[in-house]
């Protein structure tokens, strides 16, 4: 299983206003791993995901999803953006947000119908949010909002899932519920890539890890590379502070 490469990043350099935030990244992610991307604030973790998904144009380098450019493989990829990147006061309901996950398969102009609604309700059920389907999204707690985002990714029914800090602002119960769903996805052969902040839970939750801080530092199985050496390279000499918080 581990010999097929799901995501390959080659010599990727990304800049905002000519200031590079990712330098010459080479990275390959095998199929079927549940991988954490770790690095300090501003390390470029979100930027890396966004450039893999074609949301940001890199100034150099290329990205392949199963050996083809992203725009040919969109249907294989689901994305959960950082929670803070959207306006939760937007006038819409939980169910409606999940339905947005079906838009990609629909393409331009076509409207979602009963089939899409049914899929979305199932996804809500899976994350335990069915009772809140008609709740206004700003009436949901942080954990519930995160679950709605997860349901939206599930409804995309993809092979590769990118999630940007899905545990941000969630309570312990929700965190466990989410990680269980991610583990289930991996069991079903999916590749799951998660930007993660809590270094302490990395060995418990993930089987692979990528260290990133503007440059790519290391990628590999947690048991092989999650060590002081890489943590120090990524977080600097004070990495222990980062572990404790």
């Amino acid at each position, binding site marked *: 299983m581990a010999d097929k490469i799901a995501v390959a990043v080659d010599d990727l350099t990304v800049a*905002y*206003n000519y200031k590079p935030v990712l330098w010459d990244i080479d990275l390959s992610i095998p199929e079927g791993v549940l991988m954490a991307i770790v690095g300090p604030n501003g390390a470029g973790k979100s930027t890396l995901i*966004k450039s893999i*998904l*074609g*949301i940001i144009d890199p100034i150099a380098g290329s990205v392949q999803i199963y050996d083809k450019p992203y*725009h040919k493989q*969109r249907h294989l*990829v689901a*994305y959960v*953006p950082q929670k803070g*990147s*959207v*306006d939760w006061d*937007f*006038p*819409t*309901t939980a169910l409606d*947000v999940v339905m*947005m996950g079906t*838009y*990609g398969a*629909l393409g*331009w*102009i*076509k*409207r*979602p119908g009963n089939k899409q609604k049914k899929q979305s309700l199932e996804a809500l059920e899976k994350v335990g949010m069915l009772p809140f389907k008609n709740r*206004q999204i*700003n*009436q949901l*707690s942080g*954990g*519930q909002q995160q679950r709605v985002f997860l349901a*939206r990714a599930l409804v995309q029914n993809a092979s590769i899932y990118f999630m940007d800090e899905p545990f941000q602002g969630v*309570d*312990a*119960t929700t965190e466990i519920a989410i990680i269980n769903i991610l583990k289930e996805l991996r069991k079903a052969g999916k590749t799951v890539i998660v930007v993660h902040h809590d270094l302490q839970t990395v060995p418990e939750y993930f089987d692979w890890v990528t260290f990133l801080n503007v440059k790519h530092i290391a990628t590999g199985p947690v048991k092989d590379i999650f060590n002081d050496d890489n943590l120090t390279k990524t977080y600097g000499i004070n990495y222990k502070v980062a572990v404790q918080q």
Partner: protein
Amino acid sequence: MNPEIAILLISCLTAVACAIPGVFLVLRKMALISDAISHSILPGIVVGFFITHDLASPWLILLAAISGIVTVWLVEAIQKTGLVKEDTAIGLVFPALFSIGVLLIAIYANDVHLDTDAVLVGKLEYAPFDNWIINSSSSQEGITNPEDFINMGPKSLWTTGSVLLVTLVLLGLFYKELKLSTFDIGLTSALGFSPVILHYGLMSVASVTTVVSFDAVGAILVVALIIAPAATAYLLTNDLKKMLLLSVVFGILAAFGGYYLSMWLDASISGSITTVLGLIFLLVYLFAPSRGLLAVLFRQRRQRTEVSLLTFLLHLNNHDSIEERSVTHLQEHINWGKVRAKKVLKLALENNMISKNGDVVTLSNKGKEFTEKALDYIITNKDEKIEDMKDDFFLFRG
């Protein structure tokens, strides 16, 4: 056509045509850009006028719309340098374009009929008399026969009507894409819907609408018609479709209200429409059921009372002795004013949290359960624990 009906129709069509892009601009927090567009279309209008010599020509509308889009593009380009924020960029761009327009007029076209009154408040009053005449005469030159001319009715009616029709068709086709890109631009792009195309599409509609409406209702009303109905509707609903519908309703209400107000006051029609828009917004801002000012104040007061209720219940939970549970003692001990104590007692009784026997209050089972749940919530911050309390208590709704 009866001028009264013509004016009402033109203002209603304009109101609806403005309200629709307005909803998306307000939700994208880009309300200011419509102000910028309404000013910076001037150079487009002037250049268009040089070419066509007709203020209602489609080419002029197109050129003006292009200057609107150039505005949007310039604002973004300046913003992208990272040196200034969006509002500053807007403030830099539109005076520049506007003054280019003014200079062009001053240098090349002193005699162009573009008076400031018409630019600011429009000329709705005259719109019914500016008719679209089609010459169906077969003779090339010379004698023209009055019967050869067909009066198609007011020009503004045709221009705003067509723009509205196009807007409605585009909304019908791309509602899903517009909603998605307004809510979550990252996912929009990841799913393969180009946010750039959607953004410039929306901006083009907004520009064309502004140009066409500008001719009828002027620069001030056009901004008001774009922003005010959407901002008002936003206070009233949590559903995008209803927000669109309500904005349209408010636009039409203001068109009618403004017209009759202007008759009554013998004032400018577009000025009166703007006034009515402002009044509707004010009323809704004050009285909207959950987002209105009064509702917010009421909620804050209820929340204060509910915090007091919780303190009171916790106290009862912690103390069993009769003296601790007497009303007078509670008043002294927790140090509340009489009014507040009364309110809290009433709220607790209403919700069957306590029972009262003479002067002594006792925590009921329901009250015990509530207190424990609330405590649990405060300690663990786990939302599931208080789901059912949310319906009755503002305190837990955030």
